[in-house]
C-alpha cells in the first residue's frame, strides 16, 4: 500500500488491555491513543511496566486471552478496526501489513529450524511462491540486511549466529513482505552498543527502501533521539506525553518526561556531581492510586492531582499531555531546569 507523506496509516484510540490475575486486575495499558503517519518513525518510550510492549502486542492482537483481554478501544488500519478482524483477516494483517521485531532474537527464533526455513516460511505464509522462488527471495532479503556468506548462512541454525546477526535475520523476516508498519520492540536492548548502532542504521535505511513506517519501543532515550520523528511517553500503563522529538526533549510539559530528561547520564556532558533522579518507584499496576499515577513521585503535584486523573489533552498543536500543570510549563511560569 503506497501511502503519501502526511497520511495517517494507523490510529489507536483509547486502547485498554488488562490482565486478570489471582492478585487482581493488572491494567497494563489503560487508555492509550496515538496515530502514526506515512513513513514516520514513532518512538514509544517508557520504563518497565509502562505498558509499551503490551501496546505493541495489542496492535497485533498477540495478547494471550486469558489472562489478558483488550477491554476497550479501536485500532484503525486501512479503514478497518483490527479488534474486529476475523481470524482470516488477522492472518493477512500480521506479518504482511504489520510485522514485528521482538526484543530477544535468541528466544524469538526457533532453535530447531534453519534460518532459511524460518525465512521462507515468513514469505510463503503470505505469498504463493514455489520453493525455489521463495529461496531466491530469501537470499535477496539476507543480502539486504547485510548477512555475509548467504548460501551457507541460509542453512545454518540460530545458535550458530551472533546476537547482532540473529537480529538481522529477524529484521529480514519482518520486512519479507514489505509491511506498511514495522513494530520493533526493544530491538537492540540485548545487543552490544557497536552492534546496536549497525542495527539501527540498517532499520533506518530499510525504512527508506521499503517505504514503511516504524514504531520503535524502547527505554533508551538516546536511541529515539536519532531516529524518531515523534515520541509517546508512557508511565504505568498511561500515555503521559506525545509530541514531536524536539518538543519532548527540549520543551516537555509533563513532570515525568522532565524527570527522565534530567536523570539520564550523557556522554557529551561534563561530569555533574549528582544526577537528578526521580525519587521513589513506579507503582504496582494492580494497585493504582486514584488521581494521577505519577502524583506520588511528582515534585509539582497539587492537591487536585491526588483525586482526579488528568485527561490526556492537546496543550498545543500536535502536543498532548496528561497533567494539570502542563500549561504552566508551556507558558514558562514553571521552569523546566533542564
Amino acid at each position, binding site marked *: 500500500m503506497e501511502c503519501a507523506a502526511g497520511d495517517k496509516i494507523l490510529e489507536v484510540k483509547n486502547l485498554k488491555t488488562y490482565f486478570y490475575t489471582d492478585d487482581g486486575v493488572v491494567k497494563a495499558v489503560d487508555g492509550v491513543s496515538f496515530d502514526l503517519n506515512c513513513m514516520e518513525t514513532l518512538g514509544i518510550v517508557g520504563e518497565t511496566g509502562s505498558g509499551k510492549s503490551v501496546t505493541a502486542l495489542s496492535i497485533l492482537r498477540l495478547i494471550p486471552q486469558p489472562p489478558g483481554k483488550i477491554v476497550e478501544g479501536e485500532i484503525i488500519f486501512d479503514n478497518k478496526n483490527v479488534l474486529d478482524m476475523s481470524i482470516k483477516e488477522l492472518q493477512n494483517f500480521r506479518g504482511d501489513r504489520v510485522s514485528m521485531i521482538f526484543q530477544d532474537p535468541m528466544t524469538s527464533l526457533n532453535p530447531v529450524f534453519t534460518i532459511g526455513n524460518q525465512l521462507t516460511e515468513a514469505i510463503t505464509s503470505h505469498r504463493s511462491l514455489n520453493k525455489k522462488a521463495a529461496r531466491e527471495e530469501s537470499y535477496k532479503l539476507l543480502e539486504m540486511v547485510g548477512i555475509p556468506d548467504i548460501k551457507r548462512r541460509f542453512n545454518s541454525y540460530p545458535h550458530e549466529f*551472533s546476537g547482532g546477526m540473529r537480529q538481522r535475520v529477524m529484521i529480514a523476516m519482518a520486512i519479507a513482505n514489505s509491511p506498511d508498519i514495522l513494530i520493533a520492540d526493544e530491538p537492540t536492548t540485548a545487543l552490544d552498543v557497536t*552492534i546496536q*548502532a549497525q542495527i539501527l542504521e540498517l532499520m533506518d535505511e530499510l525504512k527508506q527502501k521499503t517505504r514503511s513506517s516504524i514504531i520503535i519501543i524502547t527505554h533508551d532515550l538516546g536511541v529515539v533521539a536519532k531516529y524518531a520523528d515523534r515520541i509517546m511517553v508512557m508511565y504505568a500503563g498511561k500515555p503521559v506525553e506525545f509530541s514531536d*522529538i524536539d518538543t519532548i526533549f527540549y520543551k516537555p510539559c509533563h513532570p515525568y518526561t522532565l*524527570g527522565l530528561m534530567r536523570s539520564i*547520564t550523557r556522554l557529551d556532558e561534563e561530569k555533574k556531581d*549528582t544526577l537528578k533522579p526521580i*525519587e521513589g518507584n513506579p507503582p504496582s499496576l494492580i494497585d493504582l492510586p486514584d488521581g494521577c499515577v505519577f502524583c506520588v513521585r511528582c515534585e509539582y503535584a497539587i492537591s487536585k492531582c491526588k483525586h482526579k486523573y488528568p485527561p490526556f489533552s492537546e496543550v498545543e498543536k500536535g502536543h498532548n499531555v496528561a497533567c494539570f500543570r502542563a500549561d504552566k510549563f508551556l507558558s514558562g511560569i514553571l521552569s523546566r531546569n533542564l
Partner: protein
Amino acid sequence: MAEEKLLEVKNLKKYFNLRSGFFSRKSAGTVKAIDNISFYIKKGETFGLVGESGCGKSTTVRVILRLINATAGEVRYKSVDLFNLKKREMFNVRREIQIIFQDPYASLSPRMTIGDIISEPMEIHGIGDKTSRIKRVKELLKVVGLNPEHVNRYPHMFSGGQRQRVGVARALALTPSIILCDEPVSALDVSVQAQILNLMANLQKEFNLTYLFIAHDLSVVKHVSNRVGVMYLGKIVEVAKSGELYKNPLHPYTMGLLSAVPIPDPEKERQRKRIILQGDVPSPINPPSGCRFHPRCPNAQEICSIKEPQLKNYSEDAEEHLAACFFAGKPI
C-alpha cells in the same frame, strides 16, 4: 601526596579449556577470556572498566576475588600478592574487598530476609553478636535509603532498585576498602539508575571507598569514574582519565565505541558524524593474529595482523594516557 595503589593487576591471564564433549578429554580449544592485562586502582578513586560482551570484564572481577583461579599473573592488594595467600588469609582479605552484582533478582537469596542477607557477611566473619548485628543492619538500611522497619521482608517484596540497594548494604556490611561493582545499574530502569549512582557516590565520600566499576554503558561509566580502561577481546586497549578518554580517544576501537553510543539530544545527534564499526566481535577462542582489533579496524595496516601492539603512554602530563595501537590517535 603519594598515591597509594590499592589494587594492582599484573599480566593477568585466564584461559578456559573447552572439552569437545561432556565426557571427552579432548580439547576443543581455549577461550582466552583475559589475555595479559595490567592496571591499577588508586585509593579513593573509581576505576571504570568498559567493554562489550565477551571482552573479559566480568571474568576480571571474579579472578581478582579468586572466585575462579587465574591461569597466570598476579593481583596485589595493598602490595600483598593475593594468589599466594593461604585460604584463611584470603578469607580475611575478603572483608576488605567486597562485590556488588549486576542482577538484583539473582544475587539475593529469595529464601532469606533482607536482614539475614545483610548480616550474613558479619556472621561468616564472626563480627559482633546477634543484637549488634541487627543494629548494624538497620543502620545500613538507612544508609542505603531503605526503611529499617522492613528488615524482615523477603526480596520479592522489593523493586529492582530497592533490591540493588540491599546488595549495596550487604557489600558495606564489613566496612570494606574497595568494592568491585559488576554492572551494578545495568538491570535497572533509567530513573532508578540515577538514584543508585548518587547513592554510590555519596557512600564513597562518606566511607572513603574505592570502586572498580564495570559496565558496558559508556555514559554511566563516564559519569562515575575518575579513570577508565577499555577492554576488547581479553585485552586492555586504552586507559585514561575519564574526561580525557571521551574528549580525546586514541585507540580506534574506543573511537568507534564512543561514536556508537547514542546521545539523548536530537539536535546533537543530527549534527554528529557517526562512525559505524563493521562486523561482529570475533570469538575469543580464535582471536585474530597480531592486534585483535585489526579485522574491524578502518586504519589497519600490514603490521597490525603480524605484531601485537603494547600499551604505551601518549600523555605529556602527570596523568597517563595509555593506548595499544601502532597508529594511536589517527582518526578513523
